[in-house]
């Protein structure tokens, strides 16, 4: 029985308003994060069984007039990802804000639920202008989360992030205005019919692709991401790195596979994007290896991992016949990176809580004093590299198979080299936390909830490699 | 018919005073006297334009709205004139 998709957006919004009331804060935070998680789970299960794609026109006004929600395999899968990460980050934040940053803890929940509502709204909506407003919701709430700690570095990072994201939003709006001027339609499903056989959309494509590249920190525009993601509190940077950079890449894939017809300029664009993706992997990994502090290392690794999604751009263009396999590989790569990065940022939060320092050389010997956090680091690191059994491995394996079958050897080789580089920057974390004679032995315990949530996220990212056939069933059905 | 002619004539007089005000703003050297030109001539010009609009409408509600607008313009331009002069003195 299909639920009303409006709940997925309206409930977190209400939760954010309720969390302003001091007495209700902890209860609303727990109840509504659980509720939103169950709603996302239900909508994912619905994509496994119900008839999809499910369209719901808000206000009863059909396509060109009104705005529509669209739930299909891909968006259901990403809703599940948002639900899982949101729920575990909420658990982590309960005890984190009791122990540290009490002042920020009061306002954190408002922006946390707003971010969650924005992500749900993004994965559901199929109207281009509506996506502009949701992108603005995402970047403003992410921005305040970056500026939360209040020290100078965080404010400067969030200011640069703000200017770049406003510029990107205005470019995206210009692209939408150009499409509306030519085709008179804003909804994606109608646009795909109108675009067949015309050429005017290639002009509008340029501002949109530049905007999405800026928002997902593709190479030439990646300067705002490392300071932004590393200068804020652990749960906020976990949310930012795993969830906020993903929607622009998701929108680009949806535009590419479902809306835009085949066109010469699209092919050149896919080659340019693939080169920028490859450069992002190489440069991101190079900087990640040279970093001294764990948060900067993880932020640069986000830049590198996002490069994979753009590296495969030619496959999206040529792989018309392998549409299901491409969707599965893309979804799994995003899913595995999101969970792994979230659990790594949360466990880095644990490390900083214990060691009171951010730089790598002072990482406490986790293997001895806090085995749970070490296992979280191990599992999520394995997923980032793509060791077998993990979801990362399955995603890379699918991508590799596709790139060989479609004859894109360059993309396949860059991906393999990228995995090698990934192991180069994940290994120092393991070496430090596994060192037999740690520089300083820390035995003050980390709150139980913080360790458990980091561990579960890492474990899920690793073990979901085993159940991928179940996870990807929704995408196969449509 | 006479109302139209009258309103157009009033419109021209208003426009003339606005022109005088802006010329005064450009030509006069000292900022206080420029302030004089700005507040006095423009408000007078505006009054004439409002008068000409009043003549051209037959509805009483429009007539009342225009009168209220004229009252507002007079009061706030006096206030702005006073504010600018005051800030200029203390700055």
């Amino acid at each position, binding site marked *: 029985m299909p639920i009303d998709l409006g709940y997925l957006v309206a409930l977190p919004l*209400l939760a954010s308003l309720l969390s302003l009331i001091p007495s209700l804060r902890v209860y609303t935070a727990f109840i509504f994060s659980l509720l939103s998680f169950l709603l996302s789970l239900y909508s994912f299960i619905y994509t496994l069984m119900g008839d999809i794609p499910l369209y719901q026109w808000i206000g009863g*006004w059909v396509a060109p007039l009104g705005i529509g929600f669209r739930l299909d395999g891909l968006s259901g899968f990403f809703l599940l990802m948002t639900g899982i990460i949101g729920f575990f980050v909420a658990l982590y934040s309960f005890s984190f804000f009791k122990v540290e940053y009490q002042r920020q803890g009061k306002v954190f929940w408002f*922006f946390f639920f707003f971010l969650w509502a924005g992500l749900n709204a993004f994965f559901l909506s199929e109207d281009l202008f*509506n996506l502009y407003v*949701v992108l603005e919701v995402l970047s*403003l*709430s992410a921005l305040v989360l970056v500026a939360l700690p209040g020290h100078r570095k965080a404010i400067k990072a969030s200011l640069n992030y703000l200017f770049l994201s406003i510029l990107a939003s205005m470019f995206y709006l210009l692209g939408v205005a150009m499409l509306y001027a030519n085709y*008179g339609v804003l909804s994606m499903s109608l646009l795909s019919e109108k675009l067949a056989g015309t050429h*005017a959309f290639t002009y509008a494509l340029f501002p949109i692709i530049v905007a999405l590249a800026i928002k997902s920190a593709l190479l030439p525009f990646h300067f705002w991401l490392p300071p932004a993601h590393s200068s804020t509190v652990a749960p906020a940077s976990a949310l930012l790195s795993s969830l906020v950079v993903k929607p622009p890449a998701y929108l680009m894939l949806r535009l590419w596979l479902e809306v835009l017809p085949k066109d010469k300029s699209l092919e050149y664009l896919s080659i340019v994007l693939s080169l920028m993706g490859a450069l992002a992997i190489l440069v991101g990994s190079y900087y990640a290896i040279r970093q001294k502090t764990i948060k900067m290392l993880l932020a640069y690794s986000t830049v590198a991992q996002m490069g994979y999604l753009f590296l495969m751009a030619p496959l999206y263009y040529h792989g018309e016949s392998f549409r299901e396999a491409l969707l599965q590989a893309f979804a799994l790569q995003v899913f595995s990176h999101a969970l792994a990065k979230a659990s790594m940022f949360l466990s880095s939060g644990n490390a900083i809580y214990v060691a009171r320092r951010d730089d790598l050389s002072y990482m406490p010997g986790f293997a001895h004093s806090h085995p749970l956090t070490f296992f979280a680091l191990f599992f999520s690191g394995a997923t980032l590299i793509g060791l077998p059994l993990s979801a990362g491995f399955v995603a890379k394996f699918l991508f590799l198979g596709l790139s060989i079958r479609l004859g894109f050897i360059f993309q396949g080789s860059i991906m393999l080299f990228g995995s090698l580089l990934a192991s180069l920057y994940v290994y120092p974390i393991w070496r430090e936390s596994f060192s037999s004679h740690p520089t300083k032995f820390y035995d003050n315990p980390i709150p139980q909830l913080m360790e458990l949530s980091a561990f579960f996220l890492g474990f899920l990212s690793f073990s979901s490699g085993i159940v991928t056939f179940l996870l990807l069933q929704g995408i196969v059905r449509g | 018919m006479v109302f139209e002619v009258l309103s157009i004539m009033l419109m021209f007089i208003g426009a003339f005073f606005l022109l005088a005000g802006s010329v005064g703003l450009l030509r006069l050297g000292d900022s206080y006297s420029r302030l004089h030109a700005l507040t006095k001539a423009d408000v007078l010009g505006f009054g004439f334009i409002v008068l000409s609009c009043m003549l051209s409408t037959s509805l009483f509600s429009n007539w009342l709205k225009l009168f209220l607008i004229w009252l507002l313009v007079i009061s706030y331009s006096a206030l702005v004139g006073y*504010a600018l002069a005051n800030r200029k003195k203390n700055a």
Partner: protein
Amino acid sequence: MLDFALGIMLLSSALVSLHSKDLMKSGVFFLIFGFLSGLIWVRLEAFDVALVEIILGSAITGFLIFKLVKGSKRRALRVSAFTKAWAGLVSLLFFLFMLFYLPTIERQDRVGRLVYENLHKSGVESAVNAVLLNFRGYDTLLEVGVITLAIFGLLALELKREAYHWDNPLLQSFSKLLLPFIVFFSLYITYLGTFSVGGAFQGGALLAGGLVFFALAKQSLPLKKSLILLFMATGLGFFSLVGLFYALLGYGFLTYPLKLSTLTLIFIELSIWISTAFLLYTAYKGKL
């Protein structure tokens, strides 16, 4: 001919505002740019947009920017000659690229014809407000969310800086005299929105202007902090509650049955009116 004159004035004010070294001058010319673009919207028969642009786009944005002009250093960012060169190149290329694009736009009626056909079903006579509240009501819900999010974000930063004010007896008495009329007039503008030009955001912005004018004379509103917080949150809260209410009733999210739609829309407009006003008022004060 008039368009040409307006266009040139708009462009020159933009250029002066962008190019001038003195920040106060660029702030003033930004205000002029805002008012001129408001005039251009009137020229293009976009009256609702003109109202919002003049109040929100230029007056309140200008006021926010003026808060910055005194404090900030002029040389915060280093800009090398190389940056200037590639910036010029990029914008020139973008200009040529768009120049090729412009001729491809033809004259066609887009969604507008559909809006006018379904206007009678939307419960509101004015076309823009029908689109804003009923046809694309979800956009407006998220947009109220954006402004609520921004201002609460501003409060979360806990800026201790005192807002600019000028306690002058004349200003105090005049603003006290004017405030009731402004409140009444902004309510009239909001209610007018269901028939012709006007609406929730215009009225809210107007009331915000009145409140800022009142607070400019160093007078604080006689309301408690929690009440102001409540007013700020009513827009988003009421709108999403109404959306959920209709979803629970089975009509669907944000779907208003025909006979109830006018009433619901008026209540939604009032909630947006009160929350926009107090949100922008807090944006001026910088703290509660």
